């Protein structure tokens, strides 16, 4: 909402410097972070929250300034319309479901001419182009009082019996600015005979618009149903100052005042005599306009010690009449406020006018949560994993959860399982990602010049279909400087720290996909898949223009969480182990992991490490030990024999001769 200081000063004197005024307004709810200068005159730019349609008017803002400045506001007078001559009869058949309040008047013998300069100046300051006195006055009053009005050329009506109704859909309508529309269903319209003469609350019709030759007019002030206006405005993708106000449910109690104000200005600046009145006051709502509060409850809610007499005085200054009996205060809601319905609404009103910044600051007493809550999250585990990767030289990145079709295809992922946004802000952010790897590969690409790159991300992936969507946390990493064994070492280190042992590794075997078909493996424990690691598909790397070798892994957090077990202290061995290196000759295509696993299963073999490989030779370091004694050379000899027998039988491997 644009609020020119010049216009505000028609109703209230402003003594506060503009910067301070802006913060004061912000503090009490009219967020004002900037102002612009039009013709050397400052115009405040105020963000009006949707609960306060009364602030979509200059007088509404002036009322708040009057409170801030502790001064009185001068509103335009609003005496009842009298001396109606009845020469221009009019009838409007109304529907309270479409318009909850309505007032209108015919005015005869007006003269169309430019509006007075002071009025033109004010319209220009809020960004409107002056047209003629009648149109300008309706716009001026909308800005002044916050209720839209519209003027018709009375002589262009085909009948004096107008009808407000809902469109059936498909009607042709030409707006006053000569644009043609096909109306959607359920737009509020006014018809004369079978013509649509008003697309209510959005735009008037060209067929009954004000022209240079207009003599007699009909002006109306309706308050329409907000949802109907909003739906029509959204369907047509057409909004106006009027529809913006109507969507926010302006007060139904002001239509008479507004009509009087318009008529006064028309009489003053276009001549003319008011003729016939249409009036549809919102009678039924009038009784409920009270909220009762209890002073103790108020103070208990706010944490304050407000006294009854100061409260009553303050409420009076913003237009609330009160009656008090004991601690109970009955508050009458002023006509311009439709946002106050329950005691909490009034508590906010009181708190904001006392100023939040004058309140003391306390911390809650009472109880902290005593028990486990639903959706509880173990962030310690997340941080444990992140710290482990960081200590292994990996840097954490964050990336968007949304991705593009292009990226999905480049990464050889299945587009079908991706959840799609129907109205993406850009095609770059159209799909929910099903893997963290494309983000990491792109990150490598973004670091073309970096040599020793190790990156990871911890985030959710999203698997469709959307109505049964799965959101799964993954920990993924890429490295351009680690070799296969080193990357696997990172995973081994991670699993070791989580006490997850005895994992199995199976080849990925997919024809396409993001992983290399042979140089990547699935890590499993029992039936549970822990993750995938290895090389990425060369085609994918090519698609992302990556020229380095890239190794990666993606681990499933839920599986890790299921398998993790706490570290239990084991006493150090009392007797030192016997250590020896054995060099074996192995056959081609033998899995070293399996040899080592087999050796480890031999009794009294405590540990086995891979020392070196060379061609078909492999050197292993074996640790023999016994919990109750130091092994003798003869005993070790026996174990060694057992080891060699096992691997001879299973792998046809033998000690290098």
């Amino acid at each position, binding site marked *: 909402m644009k609020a020119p200081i010049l216009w505000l000063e028609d109703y209230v004197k402003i003594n506060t410097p503009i910067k301070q005024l802006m913060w004061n307004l912000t*503090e009490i*709810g009219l*967020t004002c972070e900037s102002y612009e200068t039009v013709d050397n005159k400052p115009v405040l730019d105020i963000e009006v*929250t*949707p*609960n*306060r349609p009364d602030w979509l008017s200059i007088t509404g803002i002036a009322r708040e300034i009057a409170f801030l400045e502790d001064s009185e506001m001068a509103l335009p007078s609003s005496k009842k319309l009298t001396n109606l001559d009845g020469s221009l009869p009019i009838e409007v058949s109304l529907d309270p479901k479409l318009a909850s309040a309505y007032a209108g008047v015919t005015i005869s013998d007006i003269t169309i001419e430019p509006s007075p300069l002071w009025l033109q100046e004010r319209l220009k300051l809020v960004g409107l182009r002056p047209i003629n006195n009648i149109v300008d006055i309706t716009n001026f009053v909308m800005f002044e009082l916050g209720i839209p009005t519209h003027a018709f050329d009375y002589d262009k009506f085909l009948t004096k019996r107008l009808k407000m109704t809902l469109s059936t859909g498909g009607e042709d309508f030409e707006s006053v600015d000569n644009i043609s529309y096909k109306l959607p269903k359920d737009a509020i319209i006014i018809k004369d005979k079978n013509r649509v003469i008003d697309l209510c609350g959005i735009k008037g019709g060209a067929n009954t618009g004000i022209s240079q030759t207009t003599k007699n007019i009909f002006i109306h002030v309706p308050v329409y149903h907000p949802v109907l206006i909003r*739906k029509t405005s959204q369907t047509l993708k057409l909004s106006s100052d009027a529809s913006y106000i109507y969507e926010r449910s302006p007060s139904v109690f002001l239509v008479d005042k507004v009509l009087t104000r318009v008529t006064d200005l028309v009489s003053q600046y276009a001549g003319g005599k008011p003729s016939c009145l249409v009036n549809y006051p919102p009678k039924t709502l009038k009784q409920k306009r009270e909220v009762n509060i209890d002073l103790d409850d108020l103070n*208990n*809610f*706010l*944490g304050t010690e407000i006294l009854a007499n100061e409260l009553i005085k303050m409420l009076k200054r913003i237009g609330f009449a009160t009656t008090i009996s004991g601690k109970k205060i009955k508050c009458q809601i002023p006509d311009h406020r439709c946002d106050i319905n*329950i005691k*909490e609404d009034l*508590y*906010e009103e009181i708190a*904001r006018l006392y100023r*939040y*910044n004058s309140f*003391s*600051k*306390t*911390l*809650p007493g*009472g*109880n*902290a*949560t005593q028990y486990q*809550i*639903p*959706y509880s999250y173990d962030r310690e585990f997340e941080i444990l994993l*992140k710290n482990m990767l*960081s*200590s292994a*030289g990996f*840097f*954490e*990145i964050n*990336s968007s*959860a*949304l991705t593009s079709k292009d990226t999905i295809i480049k990464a050889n992922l299945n587009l079908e399982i991706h*959840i*799609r*946004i*129907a*109205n993406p*802000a*850009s095609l770059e*952010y159209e799909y*929910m990602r099903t893997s963290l790897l494309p983000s990491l590969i792109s990150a490598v690409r*973004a*670091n073309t010049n970096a040599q020793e790159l190790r*990156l*990871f991300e911890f985030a959710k992936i*999203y698997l469709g*279909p*959307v*109505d049964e*969507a799965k*959101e799964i946390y993954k920990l993924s990493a890429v490295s351009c400087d680690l070799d296969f064994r080193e990357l696997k070492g990172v995973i081994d280190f991670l699993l070791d720290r989580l006490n997850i042992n005895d994992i199995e590794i199976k080849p990925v075997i997919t024809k396409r996909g993001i992983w290399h078909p042979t140089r990547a493996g699935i890590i499993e424990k029992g039936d549970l898949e822990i993750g995938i690691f290895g090389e990425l598909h060369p085609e994918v790397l090519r698609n992302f223009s990556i020229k380095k070798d890239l190794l990666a892994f993606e681990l499933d957090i839920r599986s890790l969480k299921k398998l993790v077990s706490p570290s239990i202290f084991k006493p150090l061995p009392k007797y030192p182990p016997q250590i020896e290196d054995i060099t074996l000759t192995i056959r081609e295509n033998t899995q070293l992991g399996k040899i080592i696993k087999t050796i480890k299963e031999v009794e009294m073999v405590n540990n086995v490490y891979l020392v070196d490989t060379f061609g078909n030779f492999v050197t292993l370091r074996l640790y023999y030990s016994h919990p109750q004694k130091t092994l003798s050379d003869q005993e070790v000899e026996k174990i060694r024999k057992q080891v060699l027998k096992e691997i001879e039988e299973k792998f046809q491997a033998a000690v290098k001769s």
Partner: protein
Amino acid sequence: MREEIINTKNTALAQIMDAVAEEELERLRIEYLGRNGKINNLLSRIKELDPSERKNLGSLINESKKTIEDAIKQRINEFTSKSISGSEWFDLSIPGILPRIGNLHAQTKVLTKILDIFSFLGYRIADGPEIEKDYYNFEILNFPKDHPARDAQQTMFFDTTGTKNKPGELIPRTHTSAMQGRIMEKTKPPFRVVVPGRCFRYEQVDASHGVDFWQVEGFAVDEDIRFTDLLGTIDFVLRELFGQGVKIRFATTFFPFVEPGVDTYISCTACNGKGCGFCKRSGWSEVMPAGMIHPNVLNACKIDSEKWRGFAFAIGLSRAVCLKYQIDDIRILYNPDIRILKQY
């Protein structure tokens, strides 16, 4: 043999005298005096000799051993006294070799700090779906359908073709407040909960907007929670997070799910409110919208609003990270350039 012993001793002494570093002496010590060293080797060989010679040569070997030992000891002392007497040249300015350690993202660090603060205040951490129902994102939070209050939420919608859901029923959540209903409808007060998470808005990406960004939602429900408790909690949290010197101010605002509604501004972390390039001259930044939970929300979650009261707030995490590190473009948080990641 005698000659061999004397030769060994003389060679050793010559080498000891020539040694230029302490490590070299250690190597010589092992070579001559070690378990398999030359001296032991000689000693083992005297067993083979005539008993008459054994005694003489034995004591010669032991003497030689002592001489070598002393020489080494003396040279070590020389080295040590040289370095401790200050006459040695040693380059202290030589650059260190960095350990190969990675780093956590700024957002992780700031979030950890925030959650620590709330943990101190007795809050539990929760986490929930980002693919959300209209019901939890809006309806239970007192956002009527077709209400302009929804405009500010700039909502995206999922393509629900082929599912049992109507268009618009499933959305990427626009705020972590969606977790209020999910948790409150399953929990009996009193409780205090924080929910960090990703949110999504229909935005054109620029220096201050992202399509997805992070918030930390928090809410507390108890019998006698007061408005000043909310202000005090915000004040405590922001001072812990941004330092005691930060200035904080509150303003009235409107969200359908709170009443009264609060906006929280903190002074710019670069200029402390004076106005500078980083804060685009405003001096202040909105970081923590909040309010007392609207009775309609409590009642919708089957919590009796006559008996219980609560407050709720959300920290714009992405913005908080930017403020903490004086980052003037929110897109930096998604930038994986290693030169940026090393600065966090």
